[in-house]
């Protein structure tokens, strides 16, 4: 089955990203497809390439990057939600003349329409709220 996930909470402010990651691992282990994980609201913080997890805790970023590399899974960050929260890729950095970009290359910065597209393409939408 094709399952779309939505992640709405930031790491450390919410379990949203961590719960979604465990669910995604279990789903692909069970033979399901996750064509897209849509990071919205504060969930966009999961895409930060410059977060350093505490030594005794697993890195949420590493988990997503590894899972997406093994499976055909788009990690999609909403551009409107991410820009105001300081989660920007190189294209936006240049466009707004910002001092840095911080989106990890495994994440795609996309429009909000991709959330609706994910709902249209998938058999289920599972939202991990803040």
């Amino acid at each position, binding site marked *: 089955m094709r399952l779309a996930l939505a992640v*709405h909470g930031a790491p450390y402010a919410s379990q949203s990203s961590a719960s979604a990651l465990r669910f995604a691992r279990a789903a692909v282990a069970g033979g399901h497809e996750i064509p897209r994980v849509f990071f919205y609201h504060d969930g966009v913080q999961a895409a930060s390439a410059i977060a350093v997890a505490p030594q005794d805790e697993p890195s949420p970023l590493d988990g997503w990057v590894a899972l997406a590399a093994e499976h055909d899974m788009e990690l999609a960050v909403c551009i409107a*939600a991410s820009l105001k929260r300081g989660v920007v890729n190189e294209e936006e950095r240049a466009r707004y003349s910002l001092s840095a970009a911080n989106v990890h290359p495994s994440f795609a910065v996309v429009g909000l329409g991709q959330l*609706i597209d994910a709902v249209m393409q998938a058999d289920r939408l599972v*939202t991990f709220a803040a």
Partner: protein
Amino acid sequence: MAPRRILFLLRQPPYATSHALEALEAVLVAGVFDQVVSVLFADDGVWQLLRDQDGDAVGMRTVGRVATALPQYDVNDIYVCGESLRRLGLSPDDLVLPVTLLDGAGQQALIAGQHAVVSD
């Protein structure tokens, strides 16, 4: 592909976070995708529809004004939980939009008929 039935379940109050505003933006986007879109305001989400809001006072867009744009984006199935409205001490006249009130069984049926429900 047959259009999907997508419900937006909006339960958050409008200003302490951006979730309400961003969820409404998602509804407006959904409205242009030719899907069957409906919206249910429930619990503290009903506060999003109260008249006389002024987001400028706290440096945010006025959420009630964004909500009034729903019909312009072809989103016309706008529901409010009647019990939530009553609990907040509000009546339909206090709201920025005409809405359809639903009781618990009505909300249950609305949810049960969806392909997907997006929460805020």
